[in-house]
C-alpha cells in the first residue's frame, strides 16, 4: 500500500508524467470546448506502448483534475463548463458578483481537491470489502457484466432512450468481432484487408466517435465566452486564501459530501451531475440558514465541488474491479487502460494490486498538485476561458490524425477514421449517446471470450447460476426503469445532460 506511494514518488518518470497530466488536465478543464473525455481520447495514442503504470497514472490524473479547474468559468462568468459545474454556479457566480470571486475560487478548488482525496480514500476502503465478491466471479458473470456495463452506460448516457444506447453499445461489440476469430481462425468482416486482421484500432475508433464529432461541432458553433468582460477576472491572493480556509471551517460538510459523492460515483448509471445536485440539496437541508443559498453561500460552492471530484474516485471502483464504467469519461478511460494492457476484474486484485494502489495514490497526489498549482495561477488561468473555439479546432484535428496514424503506423486507419467519424457525427447530430460504443468495443472481446468459456463449462445452464441471475435481474430492472421513465415525457431524468 505505502510502497506504491513510495515507488511513485521516487520515480522521476512517473512524477514527470503526472505533472504533465495535471497541467494538461487543468488546461482542458479551463478551456471551453475541450472536455475531459476528448482529452483522454487525444492522449491515448501517445501513451500507446508506454509502461502500464506510467500510462495509467498519466491518463487518470489528467482526467481527475480537469473538474478542479472547470469551475473557473462557472464562478467568474456564470457559464458552467459542463453539467457537473452547474450546481457550483448557483452560489459561485453570485459570490463573484459581490466581489468575492477569489474567495469562491479558493473554496471551490480546495473543496475539489479534498473531495478527490477523500474519494480515493473511499475507493481504498472498499477494496477489501469487495474482494471476495470479485474473486467469486466466473466467465459466465463476466459475459453478463459486459452486458450490464453496456446497459448502465446506455442508461447513463441516453436516459429514457435506453434502446438507442444499447444499439450503439451493440454496434461497438459487433465491431469488436472484426478480425481473426480466435476459435476458428476465420478473418471476420476483414476480407483481404490484412490491417483489419488484428481487429479494428481502438484508438482510431475512439478518436472518430468522440474527438472528430466534438471538434466539428465546436467549429460549427464557435464556442467561446469572449463576450464576457475580463474585468470580473480580477481578485487578490488574500481573497483566495480566505476561500481556502472556508473548507476547514466547514470540514464536516466537506467530509459528508465527499463520502456521498464517492458513493454516488460507485453506482453506474447515476453519475453525471446527480452527485453535485444531491450534495448541494443536502447542504441546503442541513443548513441553519437555508435562505442564503443561491445568493452567495460558500457552502453552496463547497458541497457540489467536493461531491463532483469525490465521484471520480468512486467511479474508478466499478471501472477497474468490474469493468463497468461509472461515467462516460470512465468509459473512455477503461478503453485506454485496456490498450495499456490493464484487464479490469479479479486479476487486478490478485496480480496487479500494486497498480490499483498506485492509481489511488495518483488520485491523491494529482489532486494536491493540481490544487496547489491552481491556487497559485488562478488569477491568470481565468484568461484561458477567453480562447476561441476556432483557434483550438485545427490543432486538435492535427493531433487526432497524428494519433490515428501513430498508433499502428497504417495509413488505412485514416480512412477508417473518416468512415467512423461520419457515424460519430451522425450520432451527435441525432442526439444519440456515443459512450456505449466505447464500452461495447472495449468489452466486446472479453465478452466473446467469456461467453465461449461459459458455454463450454456449463452450456446454457450458465444463465441459471445464482450470480448470473442477479446480474440478469439488474439488466432487466435497468431497462424496465428506463422504459418506465420514457413513458413520462414531461419529466427530465436525474443526472442526464446532453447525450455523450
Amino acid at each position, binding site marked *: 500500500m505505502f510502497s506504491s506511494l513510495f515507488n511513485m514518488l521516487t520515480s522521476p518518470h512517473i512524477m514527470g508524467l503526472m505533472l504533465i497530466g495535471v497541467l494538461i488536465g487543468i488546461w482542458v478543464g479551463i478551456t*471551453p470546448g475541450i472536455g475531459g473525455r476528448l482529452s483522454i481520447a487525444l492522449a491515448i495514442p501517445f501513451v500507446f506502448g508506454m509502461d502500464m503504470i506510467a500510462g495509467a497514472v498519466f491518463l487518470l490524473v489528467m482526467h481527475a483534475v480537469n473538474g478542479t479547474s472547470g469551475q473557473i468559468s462557472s464562478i467568474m*462568468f*456564470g457559464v*458552467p463548463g*459542463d453539467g457537473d459545474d*452547474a450546481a457550483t*454556479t*448557483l*452560489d*459561485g*457566480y*453570485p459570490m463573484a458578483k459581490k466581489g468575492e470571486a477569489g474567495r469562491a475560487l479558493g473554496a471551490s478548488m480546495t473543496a475539489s481537491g479534498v473531495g478527490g482525496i477523500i474519494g480515493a480514500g473511499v475507493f481504498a476502503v472498499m477494496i477489501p470489502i469487495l474482494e471476495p465478491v470479485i474473486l467469486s466471479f466466473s466467465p459466465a458473470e463476466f459475459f453478463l457484466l459486459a452486458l450490464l456495463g453496456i446497459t448502465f452506460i446506455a442508461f447513463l448516457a441516453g436516459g429514457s432512450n435506453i*434502446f438507442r444506447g*444499447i*444499439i450503439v453499445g451493440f*454496434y461497438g*461489440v*459487433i465491431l469488436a*468481432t472484426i478480425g481473426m*476469430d480466435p476459435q*476458428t481462425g*476465420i478473418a*471476420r*468482416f476483414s476480407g483481404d484487408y490484412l490491417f483489419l486482421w488484428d481487429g479494428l484500432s481502438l484508438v482510431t475508433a475512439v478518436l472518430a466517435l468522440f474527438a472528430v464529432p466534438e471538434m*466539428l461541432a465546436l*467549429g*460549427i*458553433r464557435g464556442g*467561446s*465566452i469572449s463576450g464576457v468582460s475580463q474585468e470580473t477576472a480580477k481578485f487578490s491572493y488574500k481573497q483566495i486564501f480566505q476561500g481556502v480556509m472556508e473548507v476547514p471551517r466547514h470540514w464536516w460538510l466537506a467530509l459528508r459530501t465527499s463520502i456521498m459523492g464517492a458513493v454516488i460515483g460507485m453506482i453506474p448509471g447515476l453519475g453525471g*451531475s446527480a452527485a453535485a*445536485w*444531491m450534495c*448541494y*440539496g443536502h447542504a441546503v*437541508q442541513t443548513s441553519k440558514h*437555508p435562505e442564503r443559498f*443561491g*445568493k452567495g453561500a460558500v457552502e453552496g460552492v463547497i458541497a457540489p465541488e467536493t461531491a463532483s471530484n469525490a465521484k471520480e474516485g468512486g467511479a474508478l471502483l466499478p471501472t477497474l474491479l468490474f469493468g463497468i464504467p461509472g461515467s462516460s469519461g470512465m468509459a473512455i478511460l477503461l478503453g485506454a487502460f485496456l490498450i495499456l494492457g490493464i484487464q479490469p476484474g479479479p486479476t487486478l486484485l490478485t496480480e496487479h494490486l500494486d497498480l490499483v494502489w498506485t492509481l489511488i495514490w495518483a488520485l491523491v497526489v494529482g489532486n494536491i498538485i493540481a490544487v496547489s498549482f491552481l491556487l497559485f495561477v488562478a488569477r491568470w488561468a481565468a484568461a484561458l476561458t477567453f480562447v476561441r473555439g*476556432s*483557434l483550438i479546432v*485545427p*490543432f486538435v*484535428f*492535427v493531433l487526432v490524425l*497524428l494519433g490515428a*496514424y*501513430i498508433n499502428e*503506423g497504417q*495509413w488505412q486507419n485514416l*480512412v477508417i477514421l*473518416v468512415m467512423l467519424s461520419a457515424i460519430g457525427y*451522425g*450520432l451527435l447530430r441525432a*442526439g*444519440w449517446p456515443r459512450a456505449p460504443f466505447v464500452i461495447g468495443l472495449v468489452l466486446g472481446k472479453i465478452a466473446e471470450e467469456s461467453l465461449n468459456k461459459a458455454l463450454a463449462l456449463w452450456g446454457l445452464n450458465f444463465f441459471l447460476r445464482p450470480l448470473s441471475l442477479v446480474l440478469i435481474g439488474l439488466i432487466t430492472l435497468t431497462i424496465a426503469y428506463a422504459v418506465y421513465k420514457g413513458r413520462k*415525457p414531461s419529466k*427530465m431524468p*436525474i443526472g442526464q*445532460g446532453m447525450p455523450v
Partner: protein
Amino acid sequence: MKSTTFIMNLVMLAIFITLVSIASYYPPQARFMPFVVGIPAIVLCIVQIALDIRASRRKSLEVEDTRSDVVKAQDEVSRYAGRAVESEAATVDVPVMDMAGVPPDSVRREVILWTFFLSFVVGILLFGFWISIPIFLVTYLRKEAGLSWLRALLTGAIATGLLWLVVTKGLKVDLHEGFVITYLFDQLGM
C-alpha cells in the same frame, strides 16, 4: 420526429443487417457472437423506429426542455433540498454560445467544416503529414479563425516545427509520406 434520428436509425439497421448477413456465411463458431449481438440489435432498431414514429404522432403533447444548465441545476437542487433555491446565476443573461451539440440550421457551416477535415485527410494521404499540416493550419487559421496571413503563417510554422520535434525526434516515428510524394521520389530515383 427529427429526420436525423430517423436516418440514424436506418443507418444502424442497415449496418447490422449487412454484418449479420456477412456473418451468416461463416462457420457456426465464428458467426456465433455476431449473431448474439447483431440479431437483437436489428430487433432493437426496428423497435426504436416504431417508437420514434409513435412519438412523432404525439409530439404536440410533449414540451421540449429548453432550460439552461444553470436553471436545470437550480430546479434539481430544489427538488433534493425540499425547498426552492433561487440563484441570481439562473437569471443572468450571459452572452455565450451554446457549449454543447450542434445548433440547428447550420448546414452551410457543417459543409465547410467537413470540407476542411476531408481535405486535410486527402492531403495527408496524397502529400504526407509534413506538407499537409502547415497548409491546413495556415488555411484554417486564416479563413476560419480570422487571423492575419502573417500571424496564421507564423503560428502554422511554429506549430509544425514543434510537432516535428515531438514526433520525429521525441517519439522517433516516421509518418506517412504521401502517395504522390513517394511516387515522385520513385520516379526521380531518390
